Each structure stands twice: as C-alpha cells, then as structure tokens.
C-alpha cells in the first residue's frame, strides 16, 4: 500500500508539473500571479452550460478566526485552480467562460441559484452564522442531492461554531457527523489517499518556515475529514477540519517548496472529493 501511494503521488506530481506549463500557456499567466481583486460573480439564473463548476457559499461571519477571511477565504483561485486541474487530470468537462477560464460562482444560501450548483464549497466556516432561512435552505439543498465541502477551519472553537450551525441544518440525531474512514470510496475515486493531509496557509507556512503544519498548536494537531451522510449512506457534507486544503490549490504557484509539500496531496484529495460528489 505505501508503494502504491508513493506511485500515485509521484504520478500526480508529474501530472501537476506538466499541466502547470500547459495552464500557463493556456491562460496566459502563471497561476501564482493570480490574486485577490477578482469581482464576485454571483451564480446566474441559468448556468451558461451544464459542465462542472463550483459555487462558493457566501455567508455571514459571526466571529473572527486568526488569518481567516470569512466566506472569501481562498476565493477565487482555490476553486479556479482546482477546476483547471480537474479538467487536466480527469475527463470532467469544466464550464469555461469565453476567455476559456473556468467559471466559478458565488451564491447565497437564500438564492434560488443555489440549486443550479450541485457542488458547493465554503471556507473558514468556524465563523459562519446561519439564519433560520439559510439553515432551512441548506437542508433542502443537501437533501435534494447537493454537496458541500467546508474547509480551512482550525481548532476547537471553530469546530464548535461550525458543528453548532450545521446541526441546525441537519440534526445529529438524524444525520450524525462522523469521521470518514480511510477505506471510504471518497479516498480512492481517482487517487489513493491514505491520510488526511494537514495543509497550512502559505503565510503561516512561511512564518514557521515549514516546521509545523498545525496552525493552532496543540488544538489543531490532527487534521480530520468528517462527513454527514444521507439515509442511503452517501456523503453530502464533507468537512476538512484543522487543514486548509484549498490553499494548496490557491497558492500552488507561489513557492515551489510549498507546492511540493502540499499540492500533490491537496489536489489528490480535492479531485477525489469532486469525483465522489459527481458519482455518489
């Protein structure tokens, strides 16, 4: 199994490096050059096509987390880069705008356009506060077949906040939160992922010079991948706690060392989750 994992990681690394060159040629600039300042593009009433896209949940933050940016955390290049890699590493048709860049959207839970996005993400959810209407809409969305991946929230306080909010959406008595075991299909839809990678944001990584990956010290020592399943056992919410997987996509081009340390594992998990969401 370790040999298998090593082969998988090497293959993914080679594929990522090769595709980085292609991406540069394709999109006219290196991914590392991409930064904040992109306008928010709300999901339209009609998607331009039926190809795969990612919608980011815009929510209200009711508290603050260190280094957190609320709903905008890792936006938009986390999903842009992931979509590029998805199109390169799989057969998934990704929705592109006229400039041939991946379409990614922002959506509020109260927007009807939420239901045009079978796949959604949210970051820094340790600050999330949901209104009753938002909680009800999210519940409806998930039970109809929608998928949500929440990422980049660290420590006990963030977990308590998030778990309290998601419990209003899906009561634990009916939809318990569980640690997803490593033999779950989620970890092998495309790449064999044998552990939940702990990925820090690049500023923290630079600050500690790569000596630790726990942003909250002992309170976030271990990364978790937890989930909530529907009545048929299919994951509808995936939560990566004590890790910032999206930063391995967003900042993949900023520092080769950061890339080598985090991006292969981050993309392996990211693409696995996307494929799981599209197949289960």
């Amino acid at each position, binding site marked *: 199994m370790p040999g298998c994992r090593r082969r998988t990681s090497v293959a993914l690394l080679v594929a990522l490096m090769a595709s980085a060159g292609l991406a540069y040629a394709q999109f006219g600039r290196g991914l590392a050059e991409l930064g904040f300042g992109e306008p928010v593009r709300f999901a339209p009433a009609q998607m331009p096509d039926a190809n795969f896209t990612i919608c980011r949940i815009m929510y209200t933050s009711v508290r603050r987390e260190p280094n957190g940016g609320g709903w905008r955390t890792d936006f938009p290049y986390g999903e842009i880069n992931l979509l590029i890699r998805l199109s390169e590493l799989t057969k998934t048709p990704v929705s592109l705008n006229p400039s041939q860049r991946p379409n990614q959207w922002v959506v509020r839970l109260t927007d009807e356009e939420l239901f045009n996005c079978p796949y959604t993400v949210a970051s820094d959810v340790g600050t999330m506060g949901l209104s009753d209407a938002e909680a009800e809409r999210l519940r409806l969305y998930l039970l109809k*077949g*929608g998928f949500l991946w929440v990422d980049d929230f660290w420590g006990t306080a963030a977990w308590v906040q998030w778990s309290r909010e998601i419990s209003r959406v899906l009561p634990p008595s009916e939809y318990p939160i569980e640690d997803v075991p490593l033999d779950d299909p989620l970890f092998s839809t495309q790449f064999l992922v044998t552990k939940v990678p702990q990925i820090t944001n690049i500023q923290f990584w630079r600050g500690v010079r790569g000596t630790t990956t726990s942003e909250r010290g002992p309170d976030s020592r271990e990364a978790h991948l937890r989930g909530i399943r529907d009545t048929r056992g299919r994951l509808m919410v995936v939560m990566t706690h004590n890790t910032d997987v999206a930063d391995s996509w967003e900042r993949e081009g900023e520092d080769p060392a950061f890339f080598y340390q985090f991006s292969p594992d981050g993309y392996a998990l990211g693409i696995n989750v*996307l494929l799981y969401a599209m197949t289960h």
Partner: protein
Amino acid sequence: MFDTIFEALFTYRPVVFQQGELRFDLGSTGSLVAVGLVAAVMPVAAVNYRCVREKGRVRDRIVLTALRMAVLALVLVCLVRPTLVVRAAVPQQNVVAVLLDDSRSMQIPDVGGQPRGAWVRQQFAAPDSPVIRALSERFLVRVFRFSSSAERLDGSGDLTFDGSQTRLGAALDGAREELAGLPVSGVVLVSDGADTSEASLTDALLGMKAERLPVFTVGVGSARLPRDIQVDRVSTPRAVLKDASLLVDVVITQTGYSGRTVTVDVEDEGRIVGSQQVTFPSDGSPATARVRAVASEAGPRLFRFRVAPQADELVPQNNARELLVHVRDVREPILYFEGEPRFEMKFLRRAVDEDENLRLVVLQRTADNKYMRLNPESPEELEGGFPKTREELFAYRGLMLGSIEAAAFSGDQLQMIADFVDRRGGGLLMLGGARAFGEGGYGGTPVADALPLAIDPKTRASEPVDLARLQVFPTRAGQAHASTQVADSESASLARWRDLPQVTGVNAPLPAKPGATVLLTGTDERGRSQNVLVWQPYGRGKTVALSLQDTWQWQMHASIPLEDQTHENFWRQMTRWLVDGVPGVVEARPVTERVEPGEAATVEAAVVDGTFVELNDASVVARVTRPNGGTIDLPLQWTGERDGQYRGTFVTGEAGTYEVTVDASRGATIVGSGVTYLRAGPSDAEYFDPTMHEAPLRRTAEETGGRFYTPEAALGMAEDVRYAGRGVTSVEERELWNMPIVLIALMGLVCAEWGYRRVVGMS
C-alpha cells in the same frame, strides 16, 4: 314465416324442390290427347287476336296473345302431370342425432326473456316437445349434450348448462364417431354458436362432408344483446418486475349504456390496486380505459380487470377478465457506461438506487484509461473496463451509454453493442452529451444502425457547438406511454411536464428513423422543436435515445419540492422499461395460459447459450410444481420447427396455479433456467361475445348440405331432415299440378288478360 308461406303455396317444403327430380308423364294416351288439344288451341288463340286488328294496337294484341299463350302453356304443363321424385327417409329406419349445447352461455336469458337453455330444454329435451315429436315420428332420435365434448343425454335433467367451453368441432366429431355404422339421416346442432375453442371447425366439417352427413343447425339466442358491458381486451405483459407500475389499456365494449360512466378496477388477488373511470361512447363503440396499477406482490399473481355489473345487465359475468402475471422479484442488471464525470450520472444513479429490482452497474471513465466501477456484484465484474466478449456484455439486460465517444470502443465492441440489442434482445439507451450521437462519432457505426435517431454516416466526431435550452413535453405517443408518466394520471402527468424546468441538450437535433416513435420533444427558446426521447424496436430488443444531458434539473431545481418524485419516477420507469421483456437464456412459456383442470398443458422453452445462439442439443427438463405441492419432471424435446425451441406436455390435475421451472444444461454445463406459470381452472370464456353467433352455424349447415334455422323456424326441421336423402330412403313422388300456386297463377293470368282487354277497350 318464409317456410310457412312457401309451404302454403307450393304444398311442399323447399327441401323437396331442392332435392327432388322433376319428371313429366308423357307416356299415357290421355296426356297425349290433352297435349294435342292444347297445342291445337294455341294457334287458334293466336289467330283469333290477329283477326281483331281494327280494335287494337299491335302491342296490345301481342300482350294479350302472350297472356293467353301463358295460360295455355300452364294448362299444358299440368296436363303432362309434373312430378317431383324425391328420396325420403324411411320412417323409423334412420337415426337423427340431436346435439344440444350444454355450455354456460346457454344460461343467458335472451330468448324471449328466458334463458337459452330453458328454450332448448323445452324444444329439444322434452319428449313431448313439438320438434322432438316431429323428429321421433320419422326417426330414431339420439340426443347428445356437448360443451367441450359430446355425450349421450338420458333425460332433460342431464342438461346442466354449466360447461365451461363450447367446442362445435369436437361435438360434431364425437357424434359422428358415436353413430358410425348406423343409418343416419342428419345431425341437428342446437347451439348459440359461440365456439370458445381455438381449434378450427374446418377439420370437423371435412369429416362430416366425407361421410355426407348434413348438419341442421339451430341458432339459439339474440344476435345483439340490449344491455351488456364486456371487458373485451386487456393487454398486460406476461411477466413484470416487482413494483412495476403497469399502464394497462382495458378495452370495453357495451350496448345499451351509451353515455354512462363506470369505474374500471384492477384487483391483485382481490386487492384493488388501480381504478379508472371511463364514459361509454355510442352503442357498439369500444371504450378504452387506461388504468394504472402497481404489481407490488411477487410471484404468480392473478390480476382481475373489472367493471361493476349494472343493475339491468343481461350478462354480468363478462364484466371482468383475469390474467395471470408473473411478478418477478429479481434484480435486473443494467450497465451504464459514462465517459465523463458529470452530475447526470450521479442523479440518475440516485434515482434508480432505491429500486430493489434494478442493479445499475456504472462504469465511469474518470480519466484516460482510468475507470471507476460503481455497484459491481463481484470484484471481477468489469475489471477490464467495458466488456470485451459477448458473454460478458450479454449478462446485462440493459445498456446505457452516456457521454462516451465511439472511438472509446473497438470495432468489435461497437458490433457487440448492436448485437446486444439485435440478437440478445437487450435494451440500449444512449444519453445526450458532448461525446454522444453524431458529436461522439457514432455516424456509420453499427450502433448508429441500431439507434432510433438517424445519424448521417458522414458525420465525424466533433465538439458540440450549440446549447439548446429545452422545455420538454410528451408527444401523443408519449402521453400514452408508461415510461413518460410522471404523475398519477394522464392529465396530471401532462400538467407536470408543463411545470418542469428547462433542461439542456448539446447534440445537434436528429430526425427519428422511420418506424421509430417519438415520446418526448423539446422546444427551445426560439420555438424550435427537436426530438428528445425516441425509441424503436431493433431486432429482438429496443433502442432508446434521450438527447438530454441534465435531467438532474428535475430533481435539483429551486422550483422542485424536496418530496417531489418526478425525477426518480422518470428514471425508474425509463430503466425498468429498458429491461422490460428482455429475455434470459432460458425463456419458458405455456402455450396457453389457462387450461381446464385435467386437461393437457403444453410448455415451450427457448434455449440459447451465453452469446444468445440457439441451442438444439441441450438437455431441457421442466419441473412442474402442482398446486398441492407435488412435482413432476417433464423432459422437453427440441421441436425441430425452430432453433432452440423445446416443448413438452403434461396433464394437469386439480385447479390452481402450476409453476414450471425449466432447467437447461449441456453436458455438465448448466445453461440456465427460466420460470413460468399456468392456471388450471374453469374458463369464463363462455360469457364473452355472448351473442348468438350465426356465421359458424350457417357455415356448418351450408358446407354439409344442411340448413340453418332460427328458433321460430325450427319446427319444420323434421321434414327437411326427412328429405335430406341420407340413410335408408325410399323414392316418393310428389305431384305438382295440384299446388295452390298453379291455380293462383292460372287465375291470375286469366284475370290479367281480361283486365288488360278492359283497359285497352277490347272487351
């Protein structure tokens, strides 16, 4: 009435003239003298009129001369004593067989308000009845009763009118054999003519003709019932998957209830599982009720389609039909090959996932040469990707191709897919997508030959150019098709289709092939219409094209409530329809679904190997489980009529359902097995089409030299049988000169001459 008038005018019955030979007495002196006198008078009469030329026109004289000549000619004919020489049965020297219909349909009360059987009992079974008395005066009468076969009747009390079948041919054969060697003058067949057997009358009539036995038939009953409702036809498949939603057309005929609304109920072993109201059109016109029912209980189920009897209805027994349906509780394997990860597959899979009778195995291509298998039955299933052998592919009953280009298959695999439908009899569904249909490069491939949409063979694989946003709506055929019913009733289904959100397609619109049926069309935002769901039979199977790529909108869209089941129902029905009727390697079926208890039942089986090539050298054994649990092993033999067809017959015993499990093997290799069911029980066929059927009775009479009678005319039958010319006969002469018609004609001619002369002023 005709016979009475004829007999009053001509003294004798028509049969005497039909059978008799006309002779004249030209040998006696008296006759010769009389003829000579008349012959002499005739020229005189002619000259007489010629001499009165100043009193009339030439035309008047010709008419009067002709009238007088006719009078004289008639006298002349009478003077030579015309005589019919007939062969008449010698009294009490011949046998007449009287066959009385003893079936249930004779209980129908349409002979002057009394049951047909009561009339038969009065007229033919009682010794003092006029008909029997007339026959008995001339013949030795043997009375038989018949339903499925004929047997001697000892007394009228033996008539029960409870026979579950009417077999006219068997009855005639039985009587003929019973009377073999006896001098028989004829056979009298009294029946309503409703032959419920599937055997042809022709053979029986040939036997009667060969022995020159005339059959005199009496049609009992009314040709049109004043008030009756009949469940005429019900079309259900012989076998369905458990929990199948059946959409059954029930055709009802009626007389006397035009404009009335009735309810058609479907009962599954007594439990109502579906109802539909229907309003009757004009009398005689059939009405069709489309009834929905769910086959929720597995095993052999007796479905009863029934209209409640009306208060004044003559035949309530034909208001229901029963059909034995094998509700199969199995998991039908369907292979879905998807070429690109997309939400359409996810939601389709979720929709079908809860159907316990479908096993949707997904082969998802995630990257080049990388596949994900979902729901395989074993670790080996689809391990090598899409099946490379026919045995592997043909193990599935349905095949769905998603957005997967033709180039992903080898040439042999493309041919295998076509063979999957054509030879194996499977169901193939191609979904819309960037790599499907023409865009997927299927033009000119064997798969394109099988599909119901016409793809130009010159089309090359290409990227889709247009996205069409389509509002989907069923065609007329789609409105009536089970796969596109998305609500509980047809009207609700139509309303639901109108409300569903738009979906999209990326494939260039394609025309349907001749013979294909369009079930759904889509209209884009510019009002252009295109085919969306089309199907056609292809070889032994069927192919379906659904050119949409995101039907998941019918599940996820904001306008769709969480509890809405439209998307789930659509895909469950679609996938169930795809595998509906797909054969296995051993397909067993009874030749007739119902037999009478104690009758022989024949079972047939079609046997093929894993590649669906017919096997003629298999060892095929049917294990018959009787209603009481007892079993018999019945070897089936290759028929020699058709490749892979085996047949065997066993005798049923008690009434009930018989399970027949057919196992086929070849040496030590087990080919497969199949199950079917049949019923042994009394038939209610006697009550269907309960009017008197004149045609077969008239045909029987005419082809054998007999005669057809209505009940009113039956009294004269004895005389007709007497002159039928069969049996021990004697020659009799019947003089014709003294017939009343001769005197009437003579007087008429004389009066006509006199009257004419008065009119033209020559008297």
